[in-house]
C-alpha cells in the first residue's frame, strides 16, 4: 500500500465534497488512482478529457505513482 495525497479540482472537488485527501492505495499508476477515487466517491465522469499531474507535473495516465506522491485530478477544462 502507498500513501497518496489526492487533490480534486472543479467538478471533482464538488462531487467529492473536499479538495484534498490522503489515501492508502494499492495503486501502480495515475490511472489506478483515478479509478480508486471514482469508486470511492461514486463518480461517473469518464476519464476521456480529464488530465492528471503528479507533484505538479502533467503526466500521462500510465505514469507510475510512488509512496508519498500528490496526484492532481483535473476534470475537462474550459478556459477563456
Amino acid at each position, binding site marked *: 500500500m502507498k500513501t497518496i495525497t489526492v487533490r480534486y479540482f472543479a467538478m471533482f472537488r464538488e462531487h467529492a465534497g473536499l479538495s484534498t485527501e490522503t489515501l492508502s492505495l494499492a495503486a501502480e499508476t495515475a490511472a489506478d488512482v483515478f479509478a480508486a477515487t471514482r469508486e470511492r466517491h461514486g463518480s461517473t465522469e469518464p476519464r476521456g478529457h480529464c488530465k492528471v499531474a503528479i507533484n505538479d507535473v502533467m503526466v500521462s495516465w500510465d505514469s507510475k505513482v510512488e509512496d508519498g506522491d500528490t496526484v492532481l485530478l483535473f476534470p475537462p*477544462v474550459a478556459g*477563456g
Partner: protein
Amino acid sequence: MLTISSTPIQPDVLRRRLFDPAAGGFCAFEGWVRNENEGHTVLRLEYEAYEPLAVSEADKIFAEAMDRFPYLQALCVHRIGLLEIGDCAVWVGVSSPHRDAAFRACRYIIDEVKVRLPIWKKEHYVDGNSGWVNCERCARAS
C-alpha cells in the same frame, strides 16, 4: 507570460506593456462573459484555475506560438472568481513587426489556452441551475 487575476483585467495597461519600437502590428483578443450558452440564459460565471500548472503550460504555448509566428511580445491574463455579463474573462495581446504574425500568434495562444490550461468555468443560469462547461473542442469530440 500568463497571469491569473482575481481582479478586473485592465486591457489598456496590458497593451502598453507590449509596446516595442520594432512593432508595426498589435492584435488583442478578449473573452467576454455573454448572456447565453447553448440555449441557457447565463447570469454569471465562476472561473477556477490551478495556477502553478496554468502558468507552466502557458509558457509552453507561448514558446510554440513564437516558433510558428515569430512575435515581439505577448501576454495573457485570465480572470478567476465570479464574473458578470460583459466582464472580461481572458485577455491575450501580441505585438509583432507585421500584422500577420500578430494575428496568428494571438489566435494560436487563445485557442490553446482554452483547451490546455487547468482552468474551469461554471455557468450559473437564470433558472437557478449551474453547470461546469467543457471546452468547445472537447465537447465536440465527446
